[in-house]
């Protein structure tokens, strides 16, 4: 473990930014935090987390897949893949780090998604332990410890110092560059902080939320639960929950005709949208109840069934904070799971 003083964090950023593009959470004019490209003057945010999740770095909301040039009856396909820039994302919370594992299982399973894979290969994740979790946090429900974030390098920040621990080869390589700016240290201060956080975690209002009643093999049991109707009755069918979610990974592929060629691009899509499954001959999820159910069943039953019981939710609490009608996965789990409280 190595450390530096809080004042020298800026020099650490400067050092990292020499070799790779660095993104850190920074405050916006409206007070919320957003991952911002670091340059001199960009200040590390004290906010708990960003509104948009860091999945953008690997699975951007919109990316060009390829281009076509057409002439008469002929088509030329142009491979435009160029995701080769090294970058570092600093300050990723434990929940969001876990979300990469969930996305990896989708995009890195055969056939590998080369766009995502290239970004993963070129990205270094520096995580940041939480000190003041919000009431909306429930990462511990999914076995995530916010005091012990994973990632290539784990970072703890106290009032005066910043501690670094590298976990992977990529992390070790990055830490080597920071050798001059940091010094070797004991884990005492970090251990003290961890203890403090775990005490806070026990006090969180959602501390007792469990995944009991969910998981692979529960489809039959949960699918026809009458509570879906009640839970979804005022769902607006917008995509807020999906788009702020760090683990939602549905996408659409669309073509855009520029007048000089066609760009085929991929963009996030939402199973909450009425148009998501619409086909020429009909729609297999006609009402919002079915679409609503799909989103939560996918996170809590279908995904774990295909992925060794791993839930596709990390408890970051973004949907709790952002849903226009405050309907969210916690309310679903309490209502449908039935065994909570």
């Amino acid at each position: 473990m190595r450390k530096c003083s809080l004042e020298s964090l800026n020099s650490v950023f400067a050092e990292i930014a020499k070799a790779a593009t660095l993104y850190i959470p920074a405050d916006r004019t409206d007070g919320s935090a957003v991952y911002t490209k670091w340059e001199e003057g960009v200040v590390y945010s004290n906010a708990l987390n960003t509104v948009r999740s860091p999945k953008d770095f690997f699975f951007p909301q919109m990316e060009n897949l390829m281009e076509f040039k057409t002439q008469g009856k002929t088509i030329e396909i142009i491979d435009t893949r160029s995701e080769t820039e090294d970058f570092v994302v600093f300050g990723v919370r434990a929940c969001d780090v876990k979300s990469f594992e969930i996305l990896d299982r989708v995009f890195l399973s055969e056939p590998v998604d080369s766009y995502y894979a290239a970004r993963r290969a070129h990205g270094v994740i520096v995580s940041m332990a939480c000190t003041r979790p919000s009431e909306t946090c429930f990462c511990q429900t999914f076995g995530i410890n916010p005091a012990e974030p994973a990632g290539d390098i784990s970072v703890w920040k106290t009032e005066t110092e910043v501690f670094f621990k590298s976990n992977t080869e990529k992390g070790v390589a990055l830490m080597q560059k920071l050798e001059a700016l940091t010094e070797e240290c004991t884990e005492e201060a970090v251990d003290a902080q961890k203890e403090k956080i775990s005490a806070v975690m026990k006090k969180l209002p959602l501390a007792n939320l469990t995944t009991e009643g969910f998981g692979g093999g529960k489809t039959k049991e949960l699918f026809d639960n009458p509570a879906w109707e009640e839970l979804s009755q005022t769902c607006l069918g917008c995509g807020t929950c999906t788009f702020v979610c760090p683990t939602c990974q549905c996408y659409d592929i669309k073509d855009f005709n520029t007048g000089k060629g066609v760009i085929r691009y991929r963009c996030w899509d939402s199973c909450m949208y009425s148009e998501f499954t619409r086909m020429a001959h009909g729609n297999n999820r006609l009402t919002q109840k079915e679409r609503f159910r799909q989103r939560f069943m996918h996170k809590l039953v279908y995904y774990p069934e295909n992925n060794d019981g791993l839930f596709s939710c990390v408890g970051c609490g973004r949907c709790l904070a952002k849903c226009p009608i405050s309907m969210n996965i916690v309310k679903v789990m309490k209502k449908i799971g039935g065994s909570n409280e």
Partner: protein
Amino acid sequence: MQKITREQLIDKAVSLLENGTVEAVLGWGKGEFDYDVTPTVFKTADEINAGFVWNDFCGANFSRYLVAKTGKIEGKILVFLKPCDTYSFNQLLTEHRFDREKVYAVGIPCEGMADIAKVKAVCGEGISAINCDGEKIAVTTLYDDEPIMVDAKDVLAERCVNCKSKKHVAYDELLGEEGEVVDSARFDEVAKIEAMTPDERFAFWQNELSRCIRCNACRDACPACTCEKCVFDNPNSGVENKAPANSFEEKMFHIIRAFHVAGRCTDCGECSRVCPQNIPLHLLNRKFIKDINEFYGEYQAGAEVGSRAPLVDYTTGDIEPGEVFDRRDTNA
């Protein structure tokens, strides 16, 4: 702090439910915390007693739900309407979007709703309880030993700071006292932007709109956006891009949306309330309202049922589009 109490609303709802006047009640349902209120359809007195809430966070405008909910039931549905909600209610009636006979509207007074983001800006994350008490709101957090006292008026939502009316323009029954139309300063912010140079205006909106994630929450929460099929959902429209592909896309979406509700927007402020990126979308709508007031005379959408929206009307002596700028430039 609201003047009318939860008990009054529950009594009303339960009695109307029990005497058979209504079949269901559209109200605010209890959340996990004291501020995350979910619009809920209650069917029984038990459900109401257990789950109905009324506090400073009951901002959701129910008018929009009537379009879908009245189609689903045989009898009447009870809906609680705050003064600003009644304008949306009337506007939807004007557009024949739901059956008035199937609704029992109870007007309730509103002292303004709090914005949880503003509360959190003061108290930070980790709120474990919020108690409204008179002019003060007591916020208990996980990290402070004593509750933090906040002035209710300091955390009012933007739309409530600039409340345009405490008067109900539609109801079957009114609980509490009737208010008056308020002379608000809601166009001040618009005027401030108008006074900027084009470069500054562009920079301002670029900064705001570039945050858009095209989640469609503004559209889906809007009581004026009730088209059965939105142009932005139609793959054949050529604009169903789903993602803010570049600076054109995000501007286009918001210009078209604001234009589509121009003259019909009652300025209820739901769009800005629901925006996960805090984009001040009401400033687009208010610009249209302000322009319409200046060009074609004062008009408040929803003030009365059956009024003709200014953009589907005309007079032979209307202002020319070019004169709009001349007039503004001479005024400035």
